[in-house]
């Protein structure tokens, strides 16, 4: 069998072994996750495998197949130049298909005053960019991809992975974040241009500190600024769609989600710029949500 290289990473409550047929993706991950602590006792929850789909793809036009403990049968391989992205996608996949210790929402989250703002929406809604921007403006970054909701307490547990900036958000963040915290620029990925950003140091140092959710937003980029109330049933259904493990958790997931919908105020938010969004968010936040 081909030899594999490996590294261990711990992000929030989850720990990973990333095994790869090539060194390059691991060296990139290692550099970008340099501020993160090692998994205690070197124990991990999941293994991600980055390997050639066919043996000759190790050297000839190398392409990275994403595998691991949990996998999808029809995942398309990526060129080796996007190996870092493959590693990140591999970790996402383990969480989405295998994590059961929290309710997982496709959402970004930030914290202020000990309370969490959760933002969910379809790809392109701007939830990831908003969390990255707010992290530059006094909020603590908790995660841009998955919000982890405690099944017992309902608190949001940080999962501050690398921030995955896409297309126009890359330029916007390059203007405000330190240059040494960016990964390599990748063009022409299945999701367009992608560049990873290491979360601020405090987000990493405090990734063990959960926060009670105080506001849920459904942002929508590109529309005239507006806030809109939503019915509880609409909120509930959209959150079940935003969750990767709601069905798998059965009754525990149902209880956590209904409690969340009961207790956390929610709004749909349209915006055309970060400044507008920040103003709307600050208004809601200062009103006591």
């Amino acid at each position: 069998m081909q030899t594999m290289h490996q590294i261990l990473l711990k992000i929030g409550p989850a720990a990973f072994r990333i095994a790869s047929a090539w060194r390059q993706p691991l060296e990139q991950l290692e550099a970008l996750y340099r501020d993160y602590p090692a998994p205690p006792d070197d124990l991990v929850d999941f293994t991600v495998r980055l390997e050639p789909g066919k043996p000759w793809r190790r050297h000839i036009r190398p392409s990275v197949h994403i595998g691991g403990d949990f996998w999808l049968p029809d995942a398309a391989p990526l060129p080796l130049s996007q190996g870092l992205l493959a590693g990140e996608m591999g970790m996402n996949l383990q969480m989405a298909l295998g994590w059961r210790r929290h309710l997982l929402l496709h959402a970004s989250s930030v914290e202020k005053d000990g309370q969490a703002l959760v933002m969910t929406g379809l790809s392109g809604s701007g939830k990831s960019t908003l969390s990255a921007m707010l992290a530059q403006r006094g909020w603590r970054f908790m995660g841009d991809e998955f919000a982890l909701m405690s099944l017992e307490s309902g608190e949001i547990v940080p999962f501050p992975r690398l921030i995955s900036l896409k297309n126009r958000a890359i330029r916007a963040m390059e203007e405000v974040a330190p240059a040494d915290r960016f990964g390599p620029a990748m063009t022409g990925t299945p999701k367009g241009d992608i560049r990873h950003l290491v979360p601020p140091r405090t987000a990493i140092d405090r990734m063990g500190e959960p926060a009670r959710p105080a506001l849920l937003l459904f942002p929508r980029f590109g529309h005239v600024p507006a806030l809109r109330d939503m019915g509880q049933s609409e909120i509930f259904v959209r959150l079940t769609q935003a969750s990767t493990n709601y069905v798998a958790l059965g009754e525990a997931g149902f209880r956590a989600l209904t409690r969340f919908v009961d207790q956390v105020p929610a709004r749909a938010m349209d915006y055309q710029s970060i400044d507008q969004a920040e103003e709307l968010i600050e208004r809601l936040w200062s009103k006591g949500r």
Partner: protein
Amino acid sequence: MMHDARLLADALRDPASTGALSSSEWTDLVSIARAESLIGSLAHRLADIGLPDRVRAIMQDAIEAHDLARRQALWEADCARRALADYRGKIVLMKGTAYVTADLAAGTGRSIGDLDIMVARDDLPVVESALLDAGWEWVKPDPYDDRYYRDHMHELPPLIHRERDRMIDVHHTILPLTARPAPNAQAIMDRAVMLDNGLHVMAPADMLLHSIAHLFADGDLAGGLRNLWDINLLVRQFAGADKQFWPELDIRAKTHGLASEMRRALRLAARLYDTPVSGAIAGSSEIADYLYVRRLLARDGYGRETRKLTRFGFYVRSHWLRMPPLMLARHLWTKWRKGGKSPS
């Protein structure tokens, strides 16, 4: 990093042996167990053993995930029962769903995918149309595949429920019609045991022999460690409860033409899982047993399939066993032209 799956077989056989594992061995064990669909079984085996915190959490996740799988399997069986409420014949549950419905040890923590049932061959059209009425649909609309299933397989082409997205395989015997052993389906139906809900499961010896047929004759030993673990648990439970089990097994194995498969399965189970088997029935070990063990353990600590050549040998063998040479050639030729995969 471990080079084969022996770590998993050892942990299942002797849970206390995990006390000496290093962190990286634990990581290997978890990856192997997930890849072999044995993580739920392993989690239950380790329930009373002291474990590192993170491993304990992984095992707890697996127990809860399989609790849900169990509930879904029971629900799916009940859906089929209701869809076939007007059907007068026996509906015999098979494999994982049978184990959990009959509350057997082999059902504990077992992963369960499709619902497998068996009915009398003459009744297939009735059962098929009742299921279609109740919301199941064809998965493979391809005419060649459809014809192939109906002419040569031991089951209807798979059906999927349009709302619940769950598959049902309706069998009329336990091996493809083209396979060399020809089990006696009528004898299986006659001896089937009725459960409280009116559904049936196979009698103990038949249930074990089906698991054995599934391991060897129908497939290339993919998922073999899991099948062999089923066999281990069934043997322990049945032989422990009934002194007449061994002679009964011997007779039924001959009835179904599975005597040599039965002996080999018992030897492999004893070798990997310390299954207490009657030496008189299992026979003495053969050189080929070594190849089977090599194939069963062909997975490394990253969860990767290893020993490609051994695997390929068993793959070829599985097709060889399944159909006569001329038919195999015709089948592979048709499949190759279509660029598809062979059934199952």
